[in-house]
């Protein structure tokens, strides 16, 4: 089952997750280290997003039954996160400078932050073990 998750489209999915994990983590570190007081809420959420991406990447790569479950939860949290913060950043823009990954539904990243967890959840469902009849 691990191989099914990691092969084919899963390989692309994991690659994109890895890119986001590295990008989000670096971004969060720089933001928090240099200008945390400018937007503490947004940058804390940036750190949270980074953690979620790293966790999702790791769990998708390992792809054991347990990590797949964790990945499913991570991706759901990620989806809720990007939708919530996307909405909040539209309603209360002062608290959310452009540069956090989930601001404005990830528009700064071509809306990939919205699409990615949806595709990820579909992939996890598709590669779930077949139930014995």
């Amino acid at each position, binding site marked *: 089952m691990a191989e099914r998750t990691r092969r084919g489209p899963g*390989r692309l999915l994991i*690659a994109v997750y*890895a890119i986001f994990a590295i990008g989000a983590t670096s971004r969060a570190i720089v933001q928090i280290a240099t200008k945390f007081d400018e937007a503490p809420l947004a940058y804390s959420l940036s750190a949270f997003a980074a953690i979620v991406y790293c966790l999702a990447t790791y769990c998708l790569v390992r792809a054991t039954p347990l990590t797949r479950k964790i990945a499913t939860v991570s991706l759901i949290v990620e989806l809720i996160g990007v939708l919530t913060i996307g909405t909040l950043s539209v309603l209360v823009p002062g608290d959310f400078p452009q540069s956090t990954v989930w601001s404005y539904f990830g528009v700064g990243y071509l809306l990939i932050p919205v699409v990615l967890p949806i595709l990820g959840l579909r992939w996890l469902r598709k590669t779930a073990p077949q139930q014995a009849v």
Partner: protein
Amino acid sequence: MRVIDALAYLTIAVGLVLAVWSIVLFARNQGIDDFLLIGSVVLEVLVVVQLIAGVILLAGLDRSIESATFIGYLIGCVVIPPAATIWSLTERSRYGPAVMIAAYIVMPVLVVRLLQIWNPVV
């Protein structure tokens, strides 16, 4: 044009060529071919030179720029071709090139960001 800028533009060009070729392979439902692999090696050489040049130029710079981010992107560029190659090499299907599409779109973006950091528009 300064040499460092020319190098950056060359890196962007090679990256985009590889990205386009990866899209072609994906569309044709083919796996990674030699052109992609050799191209990745060429690109890696370019970004290693870029890293060395970038660090040397940064050390001798008399104005301040976002150094940490700059070095981060330099390193990021160097990591991408080997990581993408290793990750996609064992994938015989079109999703090998698919991984390369992602990697070689991200890479030119990083190089553009490097140029922006180096030449900030005041």
